[in-house]
């Protein structure tokens, strides 16, 4: 599905990522964990084209997408959420998800004006229907008309998931989706992630919430100081002495 | 020839610098653009001219009068066109509307009170010229250079040595920090406007002396150019504005001498646009940009 090889990113004198290899199997939930500053978000930013890598490659289903612009990456089938929520705050929840459909719809300036009786209208209707469906899926159906900026943080995180799913991704990157959630809300998120996986979307997850990671993911990759120090099933990674030293030990 | 042109450019540039510094001071503390700053410059020229015409004052008195008059004018503008918008947390472009309004008022007042004609200072201020090697310098040019340099040195001492000047720099760094340090931001802003406007007023008299073309509309071009120079030096950077002014003066004079003279202003703006595109932090800026 996703194949990252020898990926490196350097900011001036700071090596944020060094020789990162990562292989995500189709249909899996793959977690990337590590202490603060380990390079998890940088990894996401490089994969999704917000940053270009210093070295290495990113391939999606065998197609090299290294260094592509972010919008082309989305067209290729990768969608993401942001650690610091980046919704369109002045638009309502439904409109946010409809913007998410951008990559899968075609109407341009001309179409907006001319609006031929069939194609454009049906595309608009379809976009709206799909957006409502996704809001339903993340439990925000009743909040469709609410301004994104007025939603609670937890609702905003779920709206970001719906917006990302709207681009019909094959691969969904979630950047700390459990941030600021209570235990009950994390359980809801757990269910949501399972539902997404069942719908055929592969999920990569950056998360601090260890319990969630251990429960939901098939594979866990641990980053420390920009390098992969362990990778494997959650149970095995949990026992790995290097991981305990680098991450779990430090956190506890 | 080249040397002479450079001297002329320096002269012109030092008046540009005075105006650009004003923009930089105000942008520094407020992060806003003052679109009537060119009109403050124009008022400085007219106040100076009237002092010479009515009171038969010499250039020194005209200069001081213009400095004081525009300082007061600047404070009035801050109190009426900026502070009330700040109090209501208006968007950044609201002060642009209010200062366009102020500009219109000042232009009409100037036309009504002083007449709409282009006038010059009376020739009582006979220029004397000296030759220094290959260069010719007139007394007016020396006056311009002397006054500009003196004002810039004074400004430098003010921002580095006085409590108020340091408070202004602190506010420019961060309004919040300044407040935490117990600095009254409103007072600092008021003084900043006075200083910025006084510099523009002085520039008005100096330009009036050298070009003999004072009119209620002389501030429009100068205002746009001063803004461009502030940008050249880096937004809100007063030393950048000084160097930027001198540089642009030189570029302008040289482009008149060696390129098509009628396109001189277009050339200046083209340089500005290139800098915006390739070094948006300005020639000397180091800070990040939004």
């Amino acid at each position, binding site marked *: 599905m996703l194949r990252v090889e020898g990926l490196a990113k350097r900011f001036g004198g700071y090596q944020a990522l060094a020789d990162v290899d990562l292989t995500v199997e189709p249909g899996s939930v793959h977690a990337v964990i590590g202490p603060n500053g380990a390079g998890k978000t940088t990894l996401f930013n490089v994969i*999704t084209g*917000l940053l270009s890598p210093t070295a290495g490659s990113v391939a999606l289903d065998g197609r090299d997408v290294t260094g592509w*612009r*972010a*919008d082309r990456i*989305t067209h290729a089938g990768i*969608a993401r959420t*942001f650690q610091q929520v*980046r*919704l*369109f*705050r*002045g*638009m309502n929840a439904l*409109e946010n998800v*409809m*913007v998410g459909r*951008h990559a*899968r*719809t075609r*109407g341009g*300036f001309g179409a*907006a*004006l001319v*609006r031929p009786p069939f194609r454009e209208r049906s*595309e*608009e209707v379809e*976009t709206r229907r799909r957006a409502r469906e996704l809001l339903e899926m993340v439990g925000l159906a009743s909040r469709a008309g609410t301004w994104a*900026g*007025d939603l609670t943080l937890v609702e905003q995180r779920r709206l970001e998931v719906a*917006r990302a799913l709207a*681009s019909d991704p094959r691969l969904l990157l979630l950047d700390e989706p459990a941030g600021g959630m209570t235990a009950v809300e994390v359980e809801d998120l757990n269910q949501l992630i399972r539902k997404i996986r069942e719908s055929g979307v592969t999920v990569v997850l950056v998360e601090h919430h260890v319990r969630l990671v251990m429960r939901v993911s098939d594979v866990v990759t641990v980053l420390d100081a920009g390098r992969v120090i362990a990778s494997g099933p959650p149970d095995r990674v949990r026992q790995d002495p290097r991981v305990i030293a680098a991450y779990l030990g430090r956190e506890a | 020839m080249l040397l002479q042109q450079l001297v002329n450019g320096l002269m012109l540039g030092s008046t540009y610098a005075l105006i650009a510094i004003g923009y930089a001071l105000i942008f520094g503390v407020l992060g806003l*653009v003052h679109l009537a700053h060119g009109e403050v410059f124009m008022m400085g020229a007219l106040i100076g001219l009237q002092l010479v015409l009515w009171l038969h004052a010499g250039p020194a008195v005209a200069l001081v009068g213009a400095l004081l008059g525009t300082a007061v004018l600047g404070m009035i503008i801050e109190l009426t066109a900026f502070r009330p918008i700040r109090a*209501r947390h*208006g968007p950044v*472009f*609201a002060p642009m*509307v*209010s200062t*366009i*309004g*102020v500009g*219109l*008022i000042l232009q*009409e007042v100037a036309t*009504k009170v002083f007449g709409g004609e282009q006038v010059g200072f009376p020739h009582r201020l006979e220029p004397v010229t000296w030759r220094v090697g290959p260069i010719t310098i007139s007394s007016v040019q020396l006056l311009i250079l002397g006054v500009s340099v003196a004002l810039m040195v004074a400004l430098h001492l003010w921002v580095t040595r006085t409590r108020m000047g340091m408070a202004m720099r602190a506010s420019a760094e961060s309004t919040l920090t300044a407040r935490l340090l117990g600095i009254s931001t409103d007072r600092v802003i008021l003084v900043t406007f006075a200083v910025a406007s006084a510099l523009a007023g002085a520039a008005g008299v100096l330009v009036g002396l050298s070009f003999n073309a004072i009119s209620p509309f002389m501030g429009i071009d100068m205002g*746009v150019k001063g803004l*461009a120079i502030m940008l050249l030096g880096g937004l809100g950077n007063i030393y950048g504005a000084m160097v930027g002014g001198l540089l642009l003066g030189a570029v302008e004079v040289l482009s008149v001498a060696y390129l098509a003279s*009628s*396109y001189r*202003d*277009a050339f200046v703006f*083209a340089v*500005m*646009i290139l800098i*915006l*595109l390739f070094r*948006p932090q300005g020639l000397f800026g180091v800070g990040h*940009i*939004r």
Partner: protein
Amino acid sequence: MGSYWESVLIFLGINTVLALSLYLPISAGQLSLGHGGFMAIGAYVTVICTTWLGWPFAAGLAAGGLAAAIAGALVGFPALRIRGIYLIILTMGFGEIVRIFFLNFEPTGQASGIGGIKHLTSLPVVSVVAALMLVCLMRFRGSRIGRALRAVQEDEVAAEAMGVNLTRVKVAAFALGALGAGVGGGLYAHQALFIDPAQFGFFRSAEIFLIVVLGGVGTYWGPVVGAAVVTLLPETLRFVQEWRMTVFGTLLVLCAVLRPAGLLAPRRHTPA
């Protein structure tokens, strides 16, 4: 209707067209203080087509709008790199360059401009153009592309992550804005009957900017209301003859102070 008021209404319509032309760029987060430059290009090109080449008015307006749109795309590409106050100053510099160009361009009469322009702009023509623009903008807003523009204004990074091609959308918005200003310039020239570079200087750009900001950024009716204020107020202030601009200026200051977000301020959402 007296011809005086007819002409006032025509100018009101032209100002509405000019202000509406800023709507799309603003939707994509691009404020411009250089629309006087695009207006000048539109005015000169339209006049050349109608007066010198004898084209019909509509064809002339189309040519003027197209020329301005091309210039807009040329400015829009480099303008992608910057935003906010930098973009405002860049567009201002562009407006000045256009003015200085026409000031020196011999075929169009340099500073003395072009006179003897046929009076082709009428109230029906202006109304149709303004109404057409308003309808177009309303259609944009609810469309895929209109949503993309708003998304770009809200958060460029997130918009790009949704698959929006920032370059294409922003350059297109800017070019379409320039097109509107070009058409407005053509209409203006055939009402003023005489054009020279001085009419398209910084003050013209500032006036267009003013109309939009005064009315309220991000609303369709804002530009219309703003245009009404800016056009009609100085006219109705004729009783104060001598001090018209002073009263007008004072009213501007009051508007900015009392309704800083514009007369028709849209609903404020929680700032980011």
